Structure formats: C-alpha cells, structure tokens
C-alpha cells in the first residue's frame, strides 16, 4: 500500500509504504525485508522517472542526471511485514519491484480520480485532473 500526496502541478510526494509479504518459511527474514525495500524503491523509481526516449536510433538517457533514481530524501518510511508461514519457502527476489507501481497508481486514482494507464507517470495528466 502506498500513501502519496499530489500537488497542483502534479508533483508527487510519497508519504508511506506498507508491504505485507508471504514467502512461505522466511529463511532469513531480515534479507527478505531488505529485498522488498530495495525492490519497492527501484519499482517506484521506474514509475516516477523511468522514461527511456530514443532519438536517431539511440537511447538519449546516459546517466543519473537525465535518468533519475529516487533519492534518500524522496524515499518515505517503508514498513515490511513478513507473514509467519509454514509453507515451503518461495522466491522473493523481484516481488517488491512489481508491487510498487500499481500501488502508487491506485493511490493516485484515489487521490485525484485520474486513472493512469501508462508509466512513467505523466505529471501533466495529474495536474489537469486536479484542476478539473
């Protein structure tokens, strides 16, 4: 679950993320938490900034100055709850990456009424949605 704040210009501030994970028996629960946190940051980075554009057959983005990564001061408090389970252990490597963007998209829908169908998030759509 993502809690977010959207201002009139369509800028997004992430307030809080809560994630509940059922991976069966968690062999190393601390690593499971870290893996989910890292995955969420990576996935939400893609949703917020991860646009790749191509000009004359070449990708235009080259480094972090034109391909942003979520910074520590943009990252909210992340709470990960690992469900106690007796099931056989499952993979948890990339689960966080995929969980972030849809949760944020639904938070935006709840806050603004704008139903995004493309990523990365278009701030202009959000700004227009808020003014409507």
């Amino acid at each position, binding site marked *: 679950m993502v809690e977010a704040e959207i201002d009139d210009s369509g*800028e997004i501030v992430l307030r809080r993320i809560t994630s509940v994970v059922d991976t069966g028996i968690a062999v190393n629960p601390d690593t499971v938490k870290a893996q989910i946190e890292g995955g969420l940051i990576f996935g939400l980075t893609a949703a917020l*900034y991860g646009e790749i554009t191509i000009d004359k057959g070449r990708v*235009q*983005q080259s*480094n972090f100055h*034109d391909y*942003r990564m979520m*910074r520590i*001061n*943009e990252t909210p408090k992340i709470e990960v709850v690992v469900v106690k389970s007796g099931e056989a252990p499952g993979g948890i490597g990339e689960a966080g990456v995929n969980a972030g963007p849809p949760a944020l998209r639904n938070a935006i829908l709840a806050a603004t009424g704008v139903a995004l169908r493309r990523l990365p998030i278009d701030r202009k759509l959000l700004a227009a949605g808020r003014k409507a």
Partner: protein
Amino acid sequence: MSGKMRILASLVMIAIVAVALGIWIIRGPGPLDFAGGTKVALADYRAGKPAGVPAKLEKASLVERGEYLAKAADCMVCHTKPGEKEYSGGLGFKLPFGTLYSTNITPDKDTGIGNYSDQDFLDAVQRGKRHDGARLYPAMPYTSYTYMTDEDVLAVKAYLFSLPAVRAKPPENTLSFPFNQRWAMMFWSAVFNPDTRFTPDTSKSPEWNRGAYLTEALAHCGECHTPRNLGFALDNRKKFAGAITAGWRAFNISSDKATGLGNWRDEDLISYLSLGHAPGHGSASGPMGEAVDHSFSQFAPEDISSIVAYLRSVPPVPSPDLPAGTAPVAPASHKDGVTADARGKKVFAGACVSCHGWSGASPVSPMATLTGTWAVNDPAAINVAQIVLSGTRRHTPDDALSMPAFGNAYTDDEIAAVANYVTARFGTKGSKLTAKDVAELREQTAE
C-alpha cells in the same frame, strides 16, 4: 509662395527635423565614441598595427591568417547546427516573432557561398547585403564586422573557401509579418549600420587600438553585452552594461566596480577569456562558454591582453538590477542559512550538493564553486536555470569537471525551485522563478 503654402512647407520641415532628431536620439553614439580622441585613417596610423593577425602569423599564408580571423570573429558557432558539419548553417535563433536560421557559409555553389565574389562577400559582412541583393537580418552582426578591414574580411573568405563544400540548405525562416519583409532592413541598415572601417585613436596606446579592433570589429562583444534600443540596435549609451540574449544573461563588462569588471584583476580577465574560468568569478557557460571554446581560447596571448586593456577603458555603467557586489560564502551546515524553498532544498540535496557543497565553496573543484559568481547573485536567476537545464562544460585543464544537463530529468517546477533556493542561499537576493519562466527559458535558447 502663398501664406498657406509657406505654413505647409514649414510644417513639413519641422516634421523632417523631428524625425531626423528622433533617429539621431535613438541611434545614440557609436561603439567607440566614448574614447573621444583624434581618429586617423588606418593607413596613416604608424604607432602600431590594430588590424590583421598577431606578429607570429604575419608571414603565414592567407588561408591561415583567415582562419585566425574567422575564429576571432567566432563565425563558426552561429553558422553550425550542433551535430552538423562546421559552417554549414541551420542553427535556429528563436526570436519573439519567429525563428531565424543561420546560413551555410561553406563554398558549396548551390546552398553555400561558393558563388560569392570578393565584393559580394564584403557586402555581406560589412553591409548586410546578400549575393542576390536581399538584406540580411542583424542577427548577423554586420554592424560590428563593418569595422573590419577589407583585407581581413577577404582573408576570412579565403579561409572559408579552403574548407570542404557542404551541401546543406538551412530551413526557411518562420518570421511573421512585418519582420519577414527583408527589404525593410534597408532602412534599418541605413540608420544603424555606420558602414565604416575601424579608425585608430592617436590619443590611445597601440595596445588599446588593437584591443578596440578585436573587441568591436571581430569578437563583437557588444552584440550580447550591450543593451538594445527601440530599434533593436546596440544602445552605446549603456555600452557593455549587460543584456539578455538567446535566453542567457550576458553580464556587465563595463569598468563599473560594483556590477562590472572594475574589481577584476588583469590575471582574472585573462584567465576567464583564455580558459573560461577565473578563480572566485565562476566559469563561462552558455553562449560565453562557446565564445571561449571556439574563439577566445584560440587568441594569441598579446591579443587577449589588448582586449583587457581596451575593456578597462570602457566607462562604468552600473546594472541597477544587480546587487552592489556578490554574497560571501554560505554556512557550512544545511541547517543554517536561508531555506526559503523546501522543494528547492530537496532537489539541491539530491542532485547538487555533492559537487557544490552547502557553503557554495565546492569541496570537489574550484570550477564548481558558486560563491562569487554573478549567476547566483542575479535576482532573476536566468543563468542558474539555464545551466541546470543544459549543463556546462569547460575543456581546460584536461581534468576539468563538467556539469551535466539536468533539464530532461527534472520538471520546470523543480528547476524553478532549485534556482530560487540557490540564489537565496548563495546569492544576495533570492529569485522568484516559476515553472512558466523556466519553460520560457527552455524555448529561448538557440538550437
């Protein structure tokens, strides 16, 4: 003559005098009128050699001399679209009334200047008249180049004609009416182009005269650094007092102590012109960065010194919209000092502080020091926003650090916020840029 006719004739006379006076007032003084000394024809001046190339190139071929002069006149930057062949034109100048594209000046016969005779070339460079008789727009600084000697103009032609011909037709201009009426530039030219060659001033040193020739006829510094008058020509009453050109602010380079170059040491000016950086004064970026890269850095050392000697003599004109000096170093901790803009601080903390530091004195390289630069002390924050948008690159020394362009990763809101934060923290007065201002600055840069 009847009474009525006499009154009518007097009215017409008064109208003509009023128009002439109006033109005379708008036109103002010429670029060298401030010096006020006795002028002699160049051929009669024996004390020095203001025109031509520096001593070490005296014996060089015509093409080599032309190359030095073409670089001194900085023809290439405007006549090249980034990523295309040098001198093949097509760079777009975005004006409030449309876009103007520079021309191909390679010797291609169809799309370039391959058919130009010597006289055609002189007419274009000194008088703003094209080969086919059409008038050039003064984006081509022929009101400056008009001071060049015929010999120097033709040396530039010889150099251009030594280059490979490139077939490239620049896009059509998109100027709106009445600005698309080229013939009307005839009248503009008649009023604002002195169409006269450089005349040395015998009351000044030979070094000054060389500096005047380089600064006015070749480097055309005034085209960006002198404000424009009602007719969009240079207003030399405020010579070198600074102006905004192509979305960048060209700062005051008059001898004013507070807002101009009056307090710069000679070695700072020499370093800034030849290397693009002077300790405590920042680095040349944007159009000035290009002028250093392609023009000033190629000047002979004695020519740079001549320009400095000349600049020193330009009367002080203060810039009223700038503070009377630059701000000192900001506090070392982010907790102290101005924090007017929370979003700006957030962007600065994420993207800027690792190179520029919280104090503005860079922990990484003196070239990244913000303290003391006019850019952060400009309450309009124009150049701060532009540098964030498009970055800045210096080539000397070899390990010089460059700032990447952040314009594609940050929104106009964020760039306005960080510019406002930077000017408030490191400058004298914080700016009040909005996302709209940043969007407009993006629009104005030539490309």
